[in-house]
C-alpha cells in the first residue's frame, strides 16, 4: 500500500489540522501537506473532502480575488471544526500508538521465526 493510499483514510483529519494553522486555500493546503512529507497522487482528492467538511459545518469559507486573477476560496475552522480536530488528534494518538506497538511486535516475531 502506497503512502498516498494510506493518507486517503486520514485526509479529513490532516486537512482540519492544516486549516487549523490559519486561513488557507486549496492549492496551499496541498503545498503544506507536501512540506510535512504528505504527497498525493491526485491532489484533487482534497476537494471532495473539503466539500464534506463544509457540509458538516467544520469549516467556513470566504471568497476573495486572488493575486493572479480568479476568485479564490479561503477556509477557516469553525468551533465545531476545532472540536473535531481535537477529537481526531485523540483518535489518531490511540491508533498510532496501537499500530506502532503492532509493528514493533511483528518485526520481533519475524526475526525469531527466522532463527
Amino acid at each position, binding site marked *: 500500500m502506497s503512502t498516498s493510499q494510506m493518507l486517503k483514510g486520514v485526509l479529513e483529519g490532516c486537512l482540519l489540522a492544516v486549516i487549523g494553522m490559519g486561513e488557507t*486555500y486549496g*492549492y496551499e493546503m496541498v503545498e503544506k501537506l507536501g512540506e510535512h512529507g504528505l504527497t498525493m497522487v491526485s491532489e484533487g482528492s482534497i*476537494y471532495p473532502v473539503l*466539500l464534506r467538511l463544509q457540509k458538516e459545518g467544520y469549516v467556513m469559507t470566504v471568497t476573495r480575488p*486572488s493575486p493572479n486573477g480568479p476568485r479564490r476560496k479561503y477556509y477557516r475552522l469553525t468551533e465545531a471544526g476545532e472540536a473535531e480536530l481535537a477529537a481526531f488528534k485523540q483518535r489518531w494518538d490511540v491508533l498510532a500508538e496501537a499500530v506502532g506497538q503492532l509493528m514493533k511486535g511483528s518485526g520481533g516475531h519475524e526475526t525469531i521465526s527466522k532463527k
Partner: protein
Amino acid sequence: MKLSAKSEEFLANLRMYLMTSGKSEREIDEVADELRDHLQELESRGESIDNITGGSPKRYMQSLEEEMADDRAGWFKYLPAFILSFAAFSAMGPAIRGEFELNVVQLIGFPAVASLTVFLYWLLFRRMAGGSWSNRKLFGMGAGLSVLTIVLFVAVLLVGSLLMEPFYSASSTGNVIVILLSATAFAASAAMLRSWILVFIPMALFLPEWLIRHSAMEEETKLIVSSFVPFLAVAVVIGLVLAFERRKASKA
C-alpha cells in the same frame, strides 16, 4: 493567465456532468472556480491536470458528485420556460404560413417526442461529460441525435395531418393571435432564463419567413428563398452570440 485547452475542456465537462446530475448551480460554480485556481497554480509550475484527477477524470467527477448537495428543484424552474418555448416553436411556423391547426395526434405526440428528446440529450451530455469523447464520436452522436429528433417530429407532423382531421383550424385572425402568443411566449422564456438567445433565434428563424411571405416576390422565388434564408439567419445569430461570448470571456 490562460489555462491549457485540456484543462478548459475538463472544467467544461465537469460543469456539464454536475449539471446533468442536478447539483446546485452555486455549488458547481464554486467548485469550478476553485479547481480553475488550482489548475492555474499547477500549470504555472509546468505540471499537468492529471495531478488533480489522478488520471481518471470520470472517477474524479464522481467523487465530487457524491459530496455535493442535490438541487433538482433549482433545475425544474427551467421547465416552464422550456415548455413555453417548445410550444411556441411548434406553433409559430404554421401560423406564419396561415396553416395553424390542432389535431389529437400532434397534441399528444409533440409533448411525448419533446420529453423523449430532452431525456436523450440529457443522456448524451452526461455520457459526453464523463467520457472524454473524441471530436469524431461527439460529432457523430450529436448529429445522430439531431437527425433522430427531426425525424420523430416530422413523423408526428405527417401522421397527424395525413390521418387525422384537425379539431381546430385557425382563421386568419386566429393565426395572427397564435403568432402574437408565440412571440410573447418566447419573450417570457427569455426573461425567465435571462438569455436573449431565445428571442434572437426565433426572430432569425421566423421573421425572414414572414417578410418573404409578405413581399412582392413571385411564389416560386418565395419558396426557394424561404427554404434557406431562415437557416442562414440562425447560423449568423449563433455565430454572433459565440463571438460576443468569446469577447466577454477574454475581457474577464
